[in-house]
């Protein structure tokens, strides 16, 4: 049962991930990405990490992707706006990414299998996440707050449209 659900979810997430790249319309890509996030949230649920799943949906699907959709709808991107690519660029991109894939597959194939750590079933619950976040991972947590603060300053700065009378 669990295995079936896992394969189903994985197939769906791979499919939607591919469709993000393959869709011709930007809005469709975004919607597939939202769907992909849902399937990933499903994976979190299967790992018994309900908190992560909920936060993933709220933050990614509910906030970030809505903003994406907002911007894309506002710009109203369509096919004509897409940059034209010459065949040479396409061919070289295919060759390069093919080589990359080859190297990746070859190196993964040769790797030793690492035995999985003992799974902890309750690691994803709110209490445990809170404890870990504010104890062991305190420094990264606080760093993120600084990161968001500075990103906010930058975004507000760039978002403002004021002429600069003093500067030439």
């Amino acid at each position, binding site marked *: 049962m669990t295995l079936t659900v896992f394969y189903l979810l994985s197939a769906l997430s791979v499919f939607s991930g591919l469709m993000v790249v393959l869709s011709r*319309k930007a809005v469709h890509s975004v*919607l597939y990405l939202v769907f992909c996030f849902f399937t990933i949230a499903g994976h979190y649920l299967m790992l018994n990490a309900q*908190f992560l799943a*909920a936060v993933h949906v*709220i933050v990614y699907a509910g*906030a970030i992707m*809505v903003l994406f959709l*907002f911007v894309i709808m506002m710009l109203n991107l369509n096919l004509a706006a897409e940059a034209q690519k010459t065949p040479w660029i396409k061919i070289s991109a295919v060759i390069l990414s093919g080589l990359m894939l080859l190297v990746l597959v070859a190196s993964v194939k040769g790797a030793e299998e690492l035995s999985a750590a003992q799974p902890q079933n309750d690691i994803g619950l709110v209490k445990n996440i809170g404890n870990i976040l504010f104890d062991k991972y305190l420094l990264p947590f606080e760093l993120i707050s600084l990161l968001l603060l500075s990103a906010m300053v930058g975004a507000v700065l760039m978002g403002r449209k004021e002429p600069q009378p003093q500067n030439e």
Partner: protein
Amino acid sequence: MDTTEFLIKLILVISVFGISLLIAMYSTYAERKVAAFLQDRLGPNRAGPFGILQPVADGVKMFMKEEIIPANADKFLFIAGPSLMMLTACMTGVVIPWGGELTIGRNTFNLQITDVNIGLLYIFGVVSIGVYGIMIGAWASNNKYSLMGGLRASSQMISYELAMGISIIALVMTTGTLSTKEIVEQQSSWHWNILYQPLGFLIFLVCAFAETNRTPFDLPECETELIGGFHTEYSSMKLGFYLFAEYINMFISSAILATLYFGGYNFPFIESWGLSPNAVTIIGTLLFFGKIFFFIFFFMWVRWTIPRFRYDQLMNLGWKVMIPLALFNLFITGIITLWRNGAF
């Protein structure tokens, strides 16, 4: 999960679904009656006694209308929009505790479909994806007025979600749990959260209005500027879904408000009446619905009293009033929580 439990859950799911639809249906009727009352009119009174069959007539009318899909619309998304809207509207009811425990024979069962330990986050998640229904429908219509409505809806929802989230965090700090069931149980007798979180309640209430796109926050469907707003191109039952989903959302928001801040199915001194547990549960559930109806009435009351905001006023209220207030509330709550835990 054995069969009886499964059956009970199934019955519960179906009845919650049915009740949601029924209440939403009669909310449309109630809306018109309340409007009529506030404007000193009679309201619908032709279909059945007191016009009680009016919602049925409306439904039949909706089904009978011609179904139009614009030629340049994105067909799949055009249909997906209203469906998604309905889906998200109906999903939230799952974690709301509709009542205490009922004992029938040897079986005890809970009047809540499921008690997930992140119930509050679940609600919040469903609310936050609720905007997709509007945005997808608005974009798929290929109409600039629809698109404007959709953009307004999304920016409005995101702006007010922040304040709502922060007010919920303050609530969680006082309750110490994310499970809706536990939150309700903590509010037994008169210990309602409204007494501990008055400011938080106010913020939540305003944001609930904004999230359900009710007046004074109904800019996405502002007819004087945007014709019909995000559903300009919709007709027939797909339009019906959009309108209907709004009423379901209103019902669910009222239920959430009652659950989180007004004690859910609890009522002061109910335990001193000496009733049997089953009777207490049933009375509690009825009282819960009473609270819900009060809030639905409140939604309508506000709609027919307060005019619509201008867009910049809405944004100013959201970003410059609601979020700072919510942060202030969070800060105060944090200090009081620390003080009660003996930090000072």
